[in-house]
């Protein structure tokens, strides 16, 4: 026997039932192949020798005693740095279904101990609020049946595209057209846009797969999908390729990657789809981008012009700017000029109660081409827990009030609003996106959904995985470690991108056809929306249904 006093427990000692995920291991099925232990991104499981007591009773000799068996088994580590993240890779590789994580339904005590060595916990991924989202509850309820015929989603022709770029009032367009003056550039694009995820946050294979898929959608399927880069530049070969026209280049407060971009301008074969100026992000408003040192590989360091293996926290604001006037006037205008006034330039902000102030400023800037608002449910590659959990503004009401503000000014066709943040987080991608479009968005940006649908990201709203920040992504999506990202075949990702957008296209038609809409994307068609919450209905000025 071991005396109780000699058992070591520290304030931070945890046992497996204190962790958010518990590994269930079935000894009887395990062949000790070791795949689970080698695949586990956080080394939460290990092979170890154990001793088991076997009671022995010899009835004839009336003698009791013990036998001991030694065996090799799988055990779960209980330290914070090795706590199971629930990714489930162990069960994915296990040949015998012998192992897998289950969510701990008990209180998760590890939460109180995750701040180790004075560091506040950071994670990648999402906000981790499970259950139906607000967007999931919106129904489309203005059904065309008899007063006008329902359309046939399978056979009729549908115009599903949207416009990215500033649109002039018709009178002004005609005046400029007649006078031969500059007309702001616009792009006709698919309203579901792959949201900004940087080359750095994503692995090279993931990035390549997305771009391949986007190119296929455009060139073979006729779905004009575009993708945004996020901060951190683009591989030089992309900048000089004809695929650049499918890419929205992001410039953010760290300006990472822009040396390469500026240098490549003379050699560009085509213009980029647009330039996104990131001022804020829904998942961590008021915080700059963060690429943790784990992911600053040699390639990333070269692209970003920084030393290898250092944290890259972008500042919360653009350093050269002290006010919105400056950012709107100078930055948008400068970027417009850089690309010969041929490329739409728009800012991305996080959802905030002050979004309308930004919008009103943009409306008066002739070079601003749109506004992207990223809501609280947006994802990120890395952020402090507290930022992700507690700051931000939900997208639906934020978008709606901005749209209604434009309606009141009669400018709703001029500055397209794009929405992001939690779209499709329960898989209802088209329903969520179309709900936002009918609330007034010209299109939506989707990030997490693409990682899940196109690359098999394991994250979910139960806090599963969430380790994008440390570059250990077990699927190779957000890792810069070649051993990990080799697991992801870019061709497979491209295939899934194409599959996903084809399905979204069909679902859009299935939503628009019963509403009797096919000629144009139903932006602002709020008469078709209903929600089972009277307060929300009043706030969004849609119909309350029950």
């Amino acid at each position: 026997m071991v005396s109780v006093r000699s058992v070591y427990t520290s304030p931070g000692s945890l046992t497996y039932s204190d962790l958010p995920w518990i590994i269930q291991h079935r000894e009887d099925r395990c062949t000790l192949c070791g795949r689970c232990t080698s695949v586990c991104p956080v080394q939460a499981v290990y092979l170890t020798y154990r001793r088991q007591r076997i009671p022995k009773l010899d009835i004839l000799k009336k003698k009791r005693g013990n036998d001991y068996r030694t065996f090799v088994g799988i055990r779960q580590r209980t330290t914070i740095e090795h706590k199971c993240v629930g990714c489930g890779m162990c069960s994915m590789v296990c040949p015998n279904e012998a192992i897998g994580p289950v969510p701990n339904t008990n209180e998760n005590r590890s939460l109180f101990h995750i701040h180790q060595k004075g560091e506040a916990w950071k994670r990648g991924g999402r906000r981790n609020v499970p259950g139906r989202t607000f967007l999931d509850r919106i129904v489309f309820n203005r059904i065309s049946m008899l007063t006008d015929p329902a359309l046939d989603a399978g056979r009729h022709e549908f115009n599903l595209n949207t416009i990215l770029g500033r649109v002039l009032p018709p009178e002004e367009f005609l005046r400029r057209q007649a006078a031969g003056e500059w007309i702001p550039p616009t792009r006709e694009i698919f309203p579901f846009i792959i949201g900004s995820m940087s080359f750095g946050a994503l692995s090279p294979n993931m990035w390549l797969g997305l771009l391949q898929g986007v190119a296929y959608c455009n060139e073979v399927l006729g779905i004009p999908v575009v993708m945004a880069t996020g901060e951190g530049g683009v591989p030089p070969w992309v900048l000089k390729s004809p695929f650049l026209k499918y890419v929205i280049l992001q410039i953010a407060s760290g300006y990472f990657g822009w040396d390469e971009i500026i240098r490549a301008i003379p050699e560009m074969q085509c213009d980029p789809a647009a330039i996104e100026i990131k001022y804020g992000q829904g998942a961590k408003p008021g915080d700059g981008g963060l690429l943790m040192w784990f992911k600053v590989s040699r390639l990333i360091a070269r692209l970003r012009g920084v030393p290898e293996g250092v944290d890259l926290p972008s500042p919360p604001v653009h350093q050269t700017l002290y006010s919105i006037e400056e950012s709107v006037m100078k930055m948008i205008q400068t970027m417009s000029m850089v690309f010969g006034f041929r490329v739409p330039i728009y800012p991305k902000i996080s959802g905030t109660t002050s979004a309308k102030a930004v919008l009103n400023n943009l409306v008066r800037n002739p070079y601003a081409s749109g506004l992207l608002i990223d809501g609280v449910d947006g994802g990120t590659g890395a952020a402090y827990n507290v930022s992700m959990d507690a700051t931000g503004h939900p997208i639906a009401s934020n978008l709606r009030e901005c749209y209604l503000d434009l309606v009141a000014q009669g400018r709703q066709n001029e500055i397209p609003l794009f929405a992001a943040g939690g779209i499709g987080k329960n898989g209802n991608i088209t329903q969520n996106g179309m709900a936002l479009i009918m609330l007034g968005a010209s299109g939506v940006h989707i990030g997490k959904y693409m990682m899940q649908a196109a690359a098999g990201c394991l994250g979910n709203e139960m806090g599963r995985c969430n380790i994008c920040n440390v570059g250990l992504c077990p699927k190779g999506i957000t890792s810069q470690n070649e051993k990990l990202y080799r697991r992801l075949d870019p061709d497979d990702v491209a295939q899934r991108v194409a599959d996903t957008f084809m399905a979204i296209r069909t679902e859009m038609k299935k939503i628009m056809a019963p509403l009797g809409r096919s000629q144009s994307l139903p932006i602002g068609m709020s008469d078709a929306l209903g929600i089972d919450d009277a307060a929300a209905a009043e706030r969004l000025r849609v119909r309350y249904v029950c």
Partner: protein
Amino acid sequence: MCRLALKTADLPFSPYEVLTAMEAMQEGYDGSGLGLLLRGIEFEDFNYKGRWPIFSGIAHTEEALQRLNVFMSERGYELIYDHNFAMTPGLIEAQDREKYIVRVYREPSNVDPSHEAGEERNMRIRLELRKNGEEHGGDLTAFSFWPNVVMIKEVGWPLQVGNALGLHDGRLKANVVMAQGRQNTNYGINLYACHPFFIQGIATMTNGENTAFVPIKEWLTGKGFPGYTGYQSDSEVFTHILHYVIKKLKLPLETYKHVITPLKTEELDVHPQGEFLRGLRAVCRRLIIDGPNAVIGTLPDETCLLVMDHKKMRPATVGGRPGVWAIASEICGVDAMVPDRDRSLDFQPMREHTVIIPPHRKEMVIWSQFDPFTLPQAA
């Protein structure tokens, strides 16, 4: 579906003729509303020269009529003709019809004589009268205040309404008559919801449902133009879009079709004016209509037009001979209005067509969206 009939002729004719065409198409409406618009007015007992504005409306009470008199005289308008319908009141369902008003007013001498000022003034008078009625429990309904235009709207069956107002007696004739029998859908029974809709001399009526109504209405309202109001019917935006294209953008009539149902990008890529039209489609994106619609319109110069929705989901036929033309949602309607025509020359427009009957009425012009058009502004 609703039923539409339009007749345009060199010789003025009784609006009752168009009502008989409505009778021929009677399966298509439910008596929840009849609207008539007459252009090129001829009164039997008054030599009207087409110069002074005519007020069309309904005074539902004696008090409203008095208020109208005061309203007009305060603004210096002199009543020079008051048309008295030979009424048979029992044929009208509604009880509160004190007087159907068709009155010619002489404008005060001190008004701005320019054409634009006149258009603005007439519209404001109509809107103020409408507002005046709405502020008094809806006791005064104002349909139009415009030279050479008479409008009548009533709930009931077309022939019955015609009989009630004695429209067959030949005391009121016109060169162009538009009529619509309404199938009440989602906006309740309201006189203002009856087609045709009218703004500054431009009128349209529709057979169909505009599913893009709310975003279009919001955009038009946001233009801040006082006439873009009302919207008791989703079809009213068709009239306002036509007004916007012609009066505000000053574009040729053909572009109306390019605004409400633009061509696809692939089609515009090969269109001779594709670049301009792509730009126009983007800036007028909020005016793209949707759903099944046949739109029949008339302009102040008595031009008549017919356009279809982009999927051609509603029928409409145009037929006639030099001097007399008819447009109706059903062929039997055309037959009733112009029986003595060469039926083989009847035309049913497809999705890309705009049928235009010019004021001289010698021919109908079939214009396709794929054809170029003259566009001096953008040249």
